[in-house]
């Protein structure tokens, strides 16, 4: 048992931290989030060409780095911490991980190569219910043609490639569709959190290449969602950390009633409460990332993955929302102005808390595991 980062993992994290701090300044985030794409294409180019982050989870045999989800979580914690507007999450943590689980095929190969080459991808699936577990509302695919809608698709408006979950007669399958394929209409959504671009997609008789059939489709979708939950938890840990750090910096400087705000015990205790939630979320995140790697290696069960993902996602969501909410409060009047960044973290925390299931949904899922089975 070794529950700390290795030297290599620490190095990856430090490099990611430095890079993101450099490119994802407050000004950069604010420019990217109202831009056409929703992210800075130049930064994405640096990520894919200089840093090769997209190669991280690709098997070495396929030209990647062959690293695991622990490394992915370490990186996402840093991108979340700086609210990096980027197609990294959609492309690598979602689409690429979905593809990794598919059986070998030309479509799979071409998608992995495209991503390695710097192209973007999105994982297309929603259920309109927030937790995304319900597969009944997916677009339908008959005779190779896809019809239907999906909403809240991360980077779905601009992705070069779409990995689309559909329902065929036999069940859920995955297709690879070009972002600009005929019959695909895409529009970005105007969202409260502007640091992550969402889109609604309409498929009208669209054809694509099948990545997997109904034998594996549902399982792959569900595993991809669990991994996305852990990835989202990693970003949320970063959001919570930065909310705490920026608030602590503010209260140490700000003087009221002749004292720094930081000297008020009630303020100190609020910060301590944030830290308890934050560090606990981080522990739950690291554990879940380890479980993700074990699952991908075939050495643990889907139930274990679900349990770890629910714990990490629920805790990190609550930590981030609490940290950013208290952060606004600690900032006082300026906390709710557009000028300070804490409100951006607050909105991101809110959006991501709801993404893939609110905390109480995750608790009920855990309760079902604990209480409704046969085990005592």
């Amino acid at each position, binding site marked *: 048992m070794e529950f700390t980062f290795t030297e290599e993992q620490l190095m990856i994290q430090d490099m990611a931290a430095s890079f993101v701090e450099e490119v994802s300044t407050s000004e950069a985030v604010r420019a990217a989030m109202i831009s056409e794409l929703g992210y800075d294409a130049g930064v994405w180019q640096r990520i894919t060409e200089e840093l090769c982050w997209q190669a991280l989870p690709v098997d070495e045999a396929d030209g990647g780095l062959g690293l695991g989800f622990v490394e992915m979580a370490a990186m996402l914690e840093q991108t979340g911490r700086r609210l990096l507007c980027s197609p990294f999450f959609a492309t690598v943590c979602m689409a690429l991980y979905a593809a990794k689980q598919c059986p070998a095929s030309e479509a799979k190969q071409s998608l992995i190569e495209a991503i390695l080459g710097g192209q973007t991808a999105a994982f297309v699936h929603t259920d309109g219910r*927030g937790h995304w577990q319900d597969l009944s509302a997916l677009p339908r695919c008959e005779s190779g043609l896809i019809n239907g809608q999906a909403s809240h698709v991360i980077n779905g408006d601009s992705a070069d490639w779409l990995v689309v979950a559909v329902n065929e007669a036999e069940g859920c399958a995955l297709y690879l569709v070009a972002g600009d394929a005929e019959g695909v209409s895409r529009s970005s959504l*105007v*969202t409260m959190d502007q640091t992550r671009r969402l889109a609604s997609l309409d498929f009208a008789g669209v054809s694509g290449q099948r990545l997997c059939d109904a034998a594996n489709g549902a399982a792959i979708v569900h595993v991809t969602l669990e991994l996305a939950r852990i990835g989202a938890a990693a970003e949320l840990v970063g959001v919570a950390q930065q909310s705490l750090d920026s608030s602590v910096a503010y209260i140490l400087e700000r*003087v*009221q009633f002749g004292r720094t705000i930081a000297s*008020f015990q009630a303020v100190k205790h609020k910060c301590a409460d944030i830290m308890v939630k934050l560090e606990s979320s981080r522990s739950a995140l690291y554990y879940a990332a380890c479980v993700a790697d074990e699952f991908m290696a075939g050495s643990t069960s889907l139930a274990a993955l679900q349990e770890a993902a629910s714990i990490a996602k629920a805790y990190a969501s609550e930590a981030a929302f609490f940290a950013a*909410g208290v952060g606004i*409060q600690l900032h006082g009047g300026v*906390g*709710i102005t557009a000028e300070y960044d804490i409100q951006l973290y607050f909105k991101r925390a809110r959006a991501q808390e709801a993404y893939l299931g609110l905390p109480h949904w995750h608790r009920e899922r855990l309760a079902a595991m604990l209480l409704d089975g046969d085990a005592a």
Partner: protein
Amino acid sequence: MKLSFSAADEAFRAEVAAWLEDNLSGEFEAIRFRGGPGDEHVFVEERKAWEQRMAEGGWTCIAWPEAHGGKHASIEQQVIFNEEYARAGGPGRVGHIGETLMGPTLIEFGTPEQQAKYLPGIRAGREFWCQGYSEPGAGSDLGNVKTRAVFDETTQQWCINGQKVWTSLAHESHYCFVVARTDPSQVGHKGLGFFMVPMDQPGVTVRPIEQLTGTAEFNEVFFDDAVCGADDILGAPGQGWAVAMALLGFERGVSTLGQQMLFQNELDEIIRVAKANGAASDPSIRQRIAEAHMGLKTMRYNSMRMLSGGDGSQLSREAMIYKLYWSSWHRNLGKLAMDVMGEQAEVLQAAPYELGRLQSMFLFTRADTIYGGTNQIQRNLIAERALGLPREPRGQS
């Protein structure tokens, strides 16, 4: 202890409701339910016209003495008026600060000349006021006033320099009441004056502050050699703190019940959404909706105690908890609204950043626990004043 209103009060209620129904129509139909907290920047011209319509109907300043154009309405009548106003969707009151804060303060502290100069404009719904208390960097520390007022013997005017912040409706107001230091050798609560300053002059500059909602309900107000007359100080130099505190004392009270009707509208909308999208069958959401309902009912009972409790000159126990209670409740309501809305919580009405009503409410509630004394300050006040616990020491720096 009884819950029902008298027959005379119920007749008053009917009168208010009828007048509102007759008048909140036609040109004013569009401003129903608009202009409340977080929405103060909309329909300003229409809402000013509405103030004048109200004045013509005799519905501005009803709590004022009859000598100043009011109805000397009882607490019950004020409660009823505020409830009916909110129920009918009466728009956010542009004249609120003049009617409920400045007016009563002038009536208590003003000279007959000052009263004659300022009260009629407020009563007529034609002159609007804004406040100049908070200063940048001072936050909840109202005594930390750096704005200075110097009496210029040559011009026989007060000359004011400094900056105020969190001033709502500044660009729509004719006057600003400004707490400024008249004796620079004093600190804290001493050596302050309370001034009534015309906004339309070269020495006053207003700069909107953009909020997390993308809108700008508040402003910074800069005073650069701004002036007001020798008679435009309320009370004597050095009495500014006492006047300012008395003004804040008028802030609490009957308007709370009107505020609660707005809250009830929000909760009703949340319940509608929950029933429509199925969230009403989620047991955790059900618990939270019930909690919101309980909290709002109890807020009302708190207010009823507060309003029934004697002459209101001393702050009762239930009055001391009021701000902390409602702001925390409203903040939780905002989060509940988002969780009930589900995936749609994230999707706005339109580009570039047009928030729906519940979305705007959610974001704006984060200000509720900050303005008007943060929740931390409120807890200090309760602990120190109501429970007699030691005061927080002031720092040395």
